[in-house]
């Protein structure tokens, strides 16, 4: 059953996490930045499930945590998109470079 070693899966999740950070720093579209954050949260989910499955098979904490992260990420995305829609109404744009009212 355990054909895939744990290091492979951890590599995937860590790569996903840093792709998320990279996207957060380089992208300028707010929706894409939100997607980058979702990538980071999903890599955490993979981490939890893998640790639970391979290292601590007798416990359930990791699986529970994953379910809560998915739920909260959905709530966070809902609030963030509502804020972005309002930002679009005020600025006529969802590019962060255009939101420059507050500087220094």
């Amino acid at each position, binding site marked *: 059953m355990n054909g895939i070693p744990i290091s492979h899966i951890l590599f995937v999740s860590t790569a996903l996490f840093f792709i998320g950070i990279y996207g957060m720093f380089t992208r300028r579209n707010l929706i894409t930045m939100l997607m980058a954050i979702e990538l*980071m*949260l999903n890599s955490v989910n993979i*981490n939890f499930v893998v640790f639970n499955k391979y290292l601590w098979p007798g416990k359930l904490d990791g699986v529970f*945590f994953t379910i809560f992260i998915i739920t909260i990420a959905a709530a966070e995305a809902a*609030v*963030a998109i509502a804020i972005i829609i*309002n930002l679009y109404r*005020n600025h006529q744009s969802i590019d962060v470079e255009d939101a420059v*009212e*507050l500087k220094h």
Partner: protein
Amino acid sequence: MWSDYLQLIKAEGLVAIIMFILLFLKLGKKERNTESLLHFINVLLVINFISGFFFNAEGTLFGDMFQTNSLLSLEKNILNLGTLIISLQSFQWLKGHKHILEFYMLLLSTLLGMFFMISSNNLLMFYLGLELSTIPLAALANFDLEKRTSSEAAMKLILSSAFSSGLLLFGISMLYGATGTLNYQELSQQLTGTPLQILSFVMFAAGFGFKFSAVPFHLWTADVYEGSPVAVTSYLSVISKGAILFVFVSVLYRVFQNISVVWYNLLFILSVLTMFIGNLFALRQQNMKRFLAFSSVAQVGFILIGITGQSAAGSASVIYFILIYIFSNLGAFGVVSLVSAVTGKETVNDYKGFYKNNRMLSWVLAISLFSLAGIPPTAGFFGKFFLLLAGAGKTSSSGWQLNYILITIAALNMVISLYYYLRIIKAIFMDKNDNPVEKVKSTFSPNLSFIICVAGILVTGFASSAYDYIFSLVK
């Protein structure tokens, strides 16, 4: 049997009940007089604050996920007091607003989240409380829907807080991988300082650093503080920051005690950076809200020194300082909020000659700023004194007494901070201005909040029993 359970979650239950009362008021069709509605809500918050002193139980709930004791009840009640003061101060601003009940629903749900976070005994509960306290806060920052700055501030807040919870969660997931548990007590026994645990701790601390805006992670602070409505800004800078710092202290002392060498070094660097950068940026600010934002960043640097003490004195001095910080920062924010709501003026230049027409408000602002700067007769001095004392009291295992270097840097920074606090006071009392701010009419609620703040600043420092009481609870 049932009453035991209810008594343990009394603080959370009361806040939830107030939320439900407001929800039912919202359901009714009748148009209500906003002023009487605001007074009614303030009375509810007073009841909430007073009941925080009674019937506090100790114990755990929900399979060890939730715990409470008299120290945690005190911390929650400090936050209750701050929320009450902010509610009194925002009277002038909310009076003309259509959506009062929504404002309080969001405000109280963040407070509920902070209570759960403070009472957490498990990383899952901690994460749930943290998110409950940050997501509604972003909606609150956007409360001036038609203002461009408000929506920009909310965007910056939600993106940076989501990013920081991503970092925090990655740290938690690796901590789970390394130890196989999320419970605080079990975690503290399992931690031995392996590289994976240290890496996960650094991620964890970075997530925290974002939330209380320590320096490499502070960039969102000034923008969000400037753009949000003033009531939300004062909530962010005092209540939200205070709650996070309470949790940070208890997590460091209870969970990560075994790797204290690691976090001492981390806090040392963070604290030096935070004090210097916060102070240097505060020097050049012209907007009052931005100025107070950077001054609150600098204050976090001093709080971090207290945390490095690693003793009961460290924990007690942080709680004591946050109590004083609530009084002094809310005093300053209250005046700024009132002036901004009535006249719309927010820059330092507008405050030139402020004393001419507004005697009382000038004195409140001056006393608050003196307390923030740490001038002796005010409570701010005693708060900083105990923080530095706790930082100096740390015993070092190696010969190097790093903590004395830290205290020296802190003393230098207090001198720098004195300059910019006194600059505001000079503008108020000494500078000439051809058309100073007219007389700002203050009503009962803001006046009451100023009385509480000034009394708190003047009394808390001299009433040494306050510190003794906190210290006895910590031990």
